[in-house]
């Protein structure tokens, strides 16, 4: 290292001393944050498993024993949609974890993070399609209500279904825009670094 480099290094290293007490308190905070994050992720995964274990068999039973073919088809669609939604959520969590910074070199890390974000964006983009069996299934239950029960109940159910579908679409569009902004920042960082 040349003299000017040594001198600049000395200037740079002259500040930011960290006392042991601060390091120890940071370690405690970090371990607590890690435990909390793991518990939260475990909670989400347990929730997803509960949906699969409880809701899915119920829907499949209803799909097999529903009062009319229309109701059976509706529950079958909802069961398929729920399974796809759980799988999608599982993948989203997995990609989020894999996008976290690790010990790879910076270029590889930025590429991997951008790639995981791109996958998440595609998942979000297609959400209104892969979640549609759930909404279509509920709408078919509404159709059964319209034909065999009260019209007002059917209208209420269709209104709720429509609002839910629109809300899901808007929610995923907003999340997608944020993810895309991050992905573009990652790609820009990568091009600046290389």
């Amino acid at each position, binding site marked *: 290292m040349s003299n000017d480099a040594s001198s*600049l290094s000395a200037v740079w290293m002259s*500040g*930011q001393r960290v006392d042991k007490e601060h*390091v120890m308190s940071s370690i405690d905070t*970090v371990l607590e944050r*890690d*435990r909390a994050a793991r518990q939260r992720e475990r909670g989400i995964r347990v929730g997803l498993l509960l949906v699969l274990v409880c809701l899915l068999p119920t829907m499949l039973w209803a799909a097999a024993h529903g009062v009319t073919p229309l109701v059976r088809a509706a529950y079958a669609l909802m069961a398929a949609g729920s399974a796809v939604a759980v799988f999608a959520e599982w993948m989203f969590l997995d990609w989020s974890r894999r996008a976290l*910074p690790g010990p790879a070199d910076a270029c590889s*890390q930025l590429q991997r993070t951008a790639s995981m974000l791109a996958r998440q964006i595609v998942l979000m983009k297609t959400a209104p399609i892969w979640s549609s069996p759930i909404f279509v299934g509920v709408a078919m239950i509404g159709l059964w209500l319209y034909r065999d029960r009260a019209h007002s109940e059917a209208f209420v159910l269709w209104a709720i279904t429509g609002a839910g579908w629109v809300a899901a679409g808007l929610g995923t569009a907003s999340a997608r825009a944020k993810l895309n902004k991050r992905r573009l920042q*990652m790609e820009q960082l990568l091009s600046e670094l290389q």
Partner: protein
Amino acid sequence: MTDTPDDRGHFSELMEAYASPIRRLCAAYAESTADREDLFQDIFLAVWRALPDFRGDASVRTWLYRIAHNVALTSRARHRRRQSRESPLEDEDAAAGPEMGLRRLALKRAIAAMTPGDRTLTLLWLEGLSAIEIEEVTGVKSATVAVRLSRIRKHLQPVEVTP
């Protein structure tokens, strides 16, 4: 990672040894004290999570700088940093002595004005890493690193002569 006394002891030793360089890195990437503290903890957290997979293929120093810079680079995109309301000459700069403090401040300002890519290379160089080690940390070829550092050093010459 399980929180056993051994794991924690190993982690504590590592963080004690590298707390100051990481703190300097945080000062270069984040403006406010709160942001620096957030980034400092984010780096600790990433190191804690990566520690079980560390097999000693790379030196501890380059392994740790990889994680620290990856967290710093990606966290800039993840969080919108808070506005800094701090005075330009902070306590740690002043503590280094008036002359050194001013030179350090000038250096910090010059680094803050760099692109994230140049900033990463500069910080590693200032911490004393060779071009080969910088390649290991960043993935940028050592020849490219040398060329870019030569340009950066010319840019930093005014800081060198600041009294």
